[in-house]
């Protein structure tokens, strides 16, 4: 088992290396550079040249990549070309507010999905089941973006009860203030995630419920509750864990809809604007970080399978 985990680990490292090389190439193949002459502004070609020189961006690509790699091994991820500050610092500034929103939304949505999914699956075709199915279908079909704007129009404009943008009122920032700002984006995110998860949970449980061994334990006269907790849930857990684990990386890369519609100060928009602006060190670091998260999530899912399902051991 340890051997197979080690092998997985080595594979992961190789993948990360491949991702960094591919990102580096793709990034430099894209047209433009961070201080590209903008014809709309007063500009100074010699200053641009000196700027590129000072940041070693005039070196051949291979040597740029190797120097980046060697710095990464020493734990130095470089400075943002736009902000002139360490990339790690910039990530650390934006991550807490992102996690506050995404992790809360993830936990709430998963919890609700499991509770309601079980409830619906065990009462298949009841009115509640149908209601849950319709609701999740609606949740998947309605674009988050639109839903967010509708909420803003309703609760920030027509009935101005809640703030529409930001993490807090500048100058306030008390817990209550943050919670009030969080309410709408959280609701939109929970609704979207819940709609996804609940379908998985429901179908995973239905799958197990229709298995022969469940019929067998039922025929032995076990109580429904006991059947559910001892036999159905452990067997339905694998697909649920998979979907949950695979959503983990997304928690760290931001919540674009919330960040755009509700102006939530997260990491996602920053990643996109940095990419648009060809902020090379940011692009490299963020890609490496995202790839590591995905790899870690897969790793975690595998480890959890080992724990839960004896067959995978």
């Amino acid at each position, binding site marked *: 088992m340890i051997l197979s985990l080690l092998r997985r680990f080595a594979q992961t490292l190789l993948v990360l290396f491949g991702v960094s090389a591919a990102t580096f190439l793709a990034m430099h193949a*894209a*047209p*433009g550079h961070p*201080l*590209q*002459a*903008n*014809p*709309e*502004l*007063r*500009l*100074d070609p*010699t*200053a641009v040249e*000196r700027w590129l020189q*000072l940041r070693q961006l005039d070196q051949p690509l291979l040597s740029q990549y190797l120097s980046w790699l060697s710095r990464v091994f020493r734990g130095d991820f470089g*400075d943002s070309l*736009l*902000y*002139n*500050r360490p990339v790690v610092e*910039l990530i650390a*500034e*934006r991550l807490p507010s992102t996690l506050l929103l995404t992790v809360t939304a993830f936990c709430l949505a998963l919890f609700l999905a499991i509770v309601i999914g079980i409830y619906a699956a065990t009462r298949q075709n009841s009115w509640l089941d149908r209601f849950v199915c319709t609701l999740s279908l609606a949740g998947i079909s309605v674009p988050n973006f639109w839903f967010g*704007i509708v909420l*803003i129009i309703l609760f*920030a*404009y027509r009935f101005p*009860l809640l*703030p*529409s*943008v*930001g*993490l*807090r*009122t*500048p*100058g*306030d*920032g*008390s817990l*209550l*203030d943050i*919670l*009030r700002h969080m*309410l709408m984006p959280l609701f939109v995110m929970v609704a979207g995630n819940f709609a996804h998860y609940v379908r998985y949970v429901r179908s995973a449980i239905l799958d197990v419920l229709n298995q022969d061994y469940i019929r067998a334990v039922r025929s032995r006269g076990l109580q429904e509750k006991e059947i559910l907790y001892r036999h159905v849930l452990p067997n339905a857990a694998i697909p649920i864990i998979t979907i949950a684990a695979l959503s983990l990386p997304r928690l760290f890369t931001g919540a674009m809809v919330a*960040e*755009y*519609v*509700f*102006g939530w*100060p*997260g990491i996602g*928009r*920053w990643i996109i*604007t940095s990419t*648009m*602006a*060809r902020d090379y060190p940011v692009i490299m670091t963020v890609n490496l970080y995202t790839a590591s998260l995905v790899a870690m999530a897969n790793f975690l899912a595998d480890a959890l399978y080992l724990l839960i399902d004896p067959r995978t051991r």
Partner: protein
Amino acid sequence: MRRILVIFILLFMLFCTGCQQETATSGQSLHVAALTGPLTLNPVFLRDSASAEIAGLLHPQLLVTDPKTLAPQPRLFTSWQLLEDKLTYIFTLHEDACWSDGKPLTTEDIAFTLRVICHPDYTGWLFLPLRYIAGAEGYKQEHRSPQATGELSGVTIIDEKKVQIRLKEPYAPFLAMLTFSPLPAHLLQEVAVADLEADAYSQELTVSAGPYLLADWQRAEYVHVRANPNYFLGQPDIENIYYRFIPNQEAQLIELLAGKLDIIPTAVRVEDIKTLKQNPDIAIHTNPRLVYDYLVINSQQADSALADKKVRQVLAMLLDRDEVIKNLLLGYGEPLYGPLLPMHFAYNETRKAEKVDLAAARRLLVEAGYAELKLTLIYNVGNTVRENVALMLKEKAASIGMEIKIELLEWEAFLAAVNEGDYDLAILGRGVEADPDLSVHWHSQSPGNSLAYHNEEVDQLTAEAVTTSEHSQRTLLYRQAEELIIKDVPAIWLYVRQAVHATNARLENFKPHPDSLFFNVHEWRLASEEETP
């Protein structure tokens, strides 16, 4: 279940009614919207509009230009004098100008800032306009120390508040180029110029001299500035200004309508103006800008039909600018037919527009030998006015047998295509200086001549025009040069858009400058709610 529901409802009500008053600050507060946050607070490395806007709050300019006439006006320099030789200026600094750490702002700071700008490792945008200072180019080439030490031969400190600046040749726009802000020499003279942009000063701005001082910068949320009690033009009336980053305009509007924002600057959409004007709590302000949009023609490729002047003239006959202003800008702009802006003193009001004459355009096109012609027009994502201009042009061109293919590009890809000349036509914007100096963009040797435009006569006229400070003579020369440029059709000028700002109606003395939103911010005032009718 029911109990949980009740608790939820109660919690919700608590959120909704929760504490709304500000606790951490005292005095009046003004909330200004921005689409993005600044990259730097260092006044000599401004490259993006948010940083430039914030700089207007934190840093005083040496000189300003009049928001209407663009004539140079005193600010940190309270007066100046041009000596007989037409090369030497003597500037006097404001008596009360001081840094926020109590040190006086002196001519040593001015001399230091000029050395930084002329240093070989300086990578901001300010060197080009200041290269006319005697010794500036020599310093850039020969200075060896990583710090901005030594001196510029053209800059002589007379005393703490008087400095003499000598130019290498007469350069009339010089005063209009002194609108930048100084750095504190006593803090930064030990810093290598190459490290200056990344220095903590650019982020923390512990010391500055503007109307406001940095209080707090939440990197992804807002910049909070507080009135500078020792500002040399008097302490501003409004105590706090929050510059909030709100990435989408709908949210900005809702915040404004909900009374949580006081200014949406510059880019209020013209289609929203009518509704906003009906709201008694909101005022709309407009001012002209020093930016124009134009259609760039790539005539550099030898095999292109666009190398033929007649074809370019055909293009110039297609677009009705008045229609663009009326239908796309809803009147919030002015048509433009040449490189001089209506705000410039040299602007020629009597200049007539080219006639829009499709039949004549068709005849000229056939005469040039292009009965059929295919061209590619590029523009950038996210500018609906440019998009509609492109469509309008395509339609008009189709009616005379010219096919224009429209390509929409992401911003960086668009810039790359423009810089590499990989296009036939492009719709671009261009920022111009307060001085009408046409040599910046149209002199064949100028670094700002991005279209590689070349006309000997224009070179001569524009070079001559900067040697005299007589407005009447300069006007004459620039108008001649403008006529020549227009005749060559290197581009087709479209319009100057107005900056449209929506503000809280209680905001008084808000008079934005074409180059600076926070112009004279120390005079702004928020009337209390009882004062307003």
